[in-house]
């Protein structure tokens, strides 16, 4: 069995998974209106971490998250030759050094934490987080490493904000995934870390099971979602097949749900094709904004908290159905025993990825 646990979340909602969970339980959002943040001096809704400032924000976030994670596991495994750190990120330390967005950070982490191996960076746009968790599970399963620490991190930079503005993809209100009035993303920043391991005893608190999934390309467009949801359908189908799981067994779907017209519409088509349309579903972007390379890890860590706390969390920002295929979007928090959950992600470059988490 592949275990996952010791989740840490650093976001505008708090510096650990528990504080984040308190905020989610109260349906509190990390999104706020930031004056004059836009390219033309417009006020923009962003999910920024107030305490995070100055240079090396990417590095600071990862060091904080890793330090917190290590306090929740058997610290003896950290310097082991059988342990690898994987980093999921899109733009890394772009604000510090455009020509070296990752390598200096990796070298620092290796030295700071006494790692046997240099951390490996996976950069696949918005599916990076889910993909990296799958890579971690597969590495453990193949016996390449016994423990893989997965860190997802991205900071909200002007670079990325201006880019999404240039695509007219930034919401003029806090993002509203799957809602009829949705009109774009809200950019966020944050960092999450989990330990993926073949050894259950290295976790301080009981771990969950990670069922690694597949990724699939849409082969359609580099920045526009597929109209048929083909890549997402293929990814989820293969994830189900790999583990002999059927759609009936899924208790909850944590969707990607960016809040753009086309992405959310594509997901509704894919979930309908997958017979998942009646499953309780949310997007967590209304709480964290879109944290790009961190999103898949942050959202999976929240899923783990949902399983641990036996609670479905409301899909913040959603009020009226706004996709061509109806979905069962969670309208209010609701206690529920969650055994098997599905997490999906889709992104630029046509990527789609999925994984499952199971209560043990």
């Amino acid at each position, binding site marked *: 069995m592949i275990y996952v646990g010791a989740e840490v979340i650093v976001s505008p909602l708090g510096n650990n998974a528990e504080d984040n969970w308190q905020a989610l339980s109260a349906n509190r959002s990390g999104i706020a209106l930031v004056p004059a943040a836009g390219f033309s001096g417009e006020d923009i809704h962003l999910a920024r971490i107030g305490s995070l400032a100055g240079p090396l924000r990417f590095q600071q976030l990862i060091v904080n998250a890793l330090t917190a994670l290590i306090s929740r596991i058997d610290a003896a495994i950290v310097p082991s030759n059988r342990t690898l750190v994987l980093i999921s990120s899109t733009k890394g330390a772009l604000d510090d050094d*455009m020509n070296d967005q990752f390598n200096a950070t990796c070298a620092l982490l290796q030295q700071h934490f006494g790692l046997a191996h240099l951390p490996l*960076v996976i*950069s696949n746009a918005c599916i990076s987080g889910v993909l990296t968790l799958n890579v971690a599970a597969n590495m453990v399963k193949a016996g390449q490493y016994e423990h893989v620490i997965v860190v997802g991190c991205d900071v909200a930079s002007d670079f990325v904000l*201006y880019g999404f503005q240039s695509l007219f993809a930034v919401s003029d209100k806090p993002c509203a995934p799957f809602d009829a009035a949705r009109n774009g993303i809200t950019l966020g920043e944050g960092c999450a870390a989990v330990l993926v391991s073949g050894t259950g005893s290295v976790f301080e608190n009981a771990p969950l099971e990670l069922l690694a999934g597949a990724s699939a390309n*849409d082969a359609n467009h*580099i920045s526009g979602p597929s109209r048929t949801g*083909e890549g997402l359908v293929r990814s989820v189908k293969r994830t189900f097949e790999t583990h002999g799981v059927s759609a009936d067994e899924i208790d909850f779907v944590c969707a990607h749900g960016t809040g753009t017209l086309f992405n959310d519409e594509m997901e509704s088509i894919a979930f309908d094709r997958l017979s998942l349309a009646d499953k309780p579903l949310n997007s967590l972007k209304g709480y964290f904004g879109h944290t790009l390379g961190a999103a898949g890890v942050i959202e999976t860590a929240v899923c783990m908290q949902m399983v641990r706390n036996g609670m479905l969390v409301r899909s913040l920002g959603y009020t009226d159905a706004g996709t061509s295929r109806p979905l069962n979007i969670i309208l209010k928090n609701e206690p529920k025993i969650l055994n098997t959950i599905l997490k999906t992600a889709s992104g*630029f470059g046509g990527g789609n990825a999925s994984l499952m988490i199971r209560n043990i």
Partner: protein
Amino acid sequence: MKVITAYCNLRADRCLVNGEVVAERDPASEDSWFKQIYKKHALAYPKFYKMDVLSQAGYLASELIKKANPGLVDAYADDEIALIFANATSSAETDRRFKQSYEEAGTPSPSLFVYTLPNIVLGEIAIANKWYGENMFAVLPKFAPGFYLDYGQILSSSGSRALLCGWLEVTATGTDVFLFMVEERETGPAFSHDNLLQLSQAREAAAI
């Protein structure tokens, strides 16, 4: 066994496929080096002109591999070829140009922004071939055979029957592109650490 069945080395002034020179840069040409290759090999894919340098390099190298090895990809279903790519500088060259667009040219360019992610080249190759398989892009300090061997092993055991792998470094100061195809064969150069190191450095016979 897993065998390297084809490879392409694309450098600042020469392009080689399976160790043979297939294009040489004409310094007098008005066309960019990548455009020279595109024209010389009569490729007909107008999207090429919209791509950034990373995507152009990946597209060219993958097309030249296919051209020199007819039938190479026909044996596979549309989701059986996995793409495993890496480089050291992510999309830094296009990042720099996008930053220039809003700092110096007055407005952020959407057509540059969509290429400010290193994995976009994987999307371009997937679109050009209608491939729905696994994709992964990693950022490493330098070309590392072990990365491809480890992850190739994982994908091969989860349904991918062939791998198209690439090291794709295209910056203002240099071009170092190495794409290679890995398939199941009885004979041929093994998908191994030493062979990858050697082929990544391949020179045309005359220069050795």
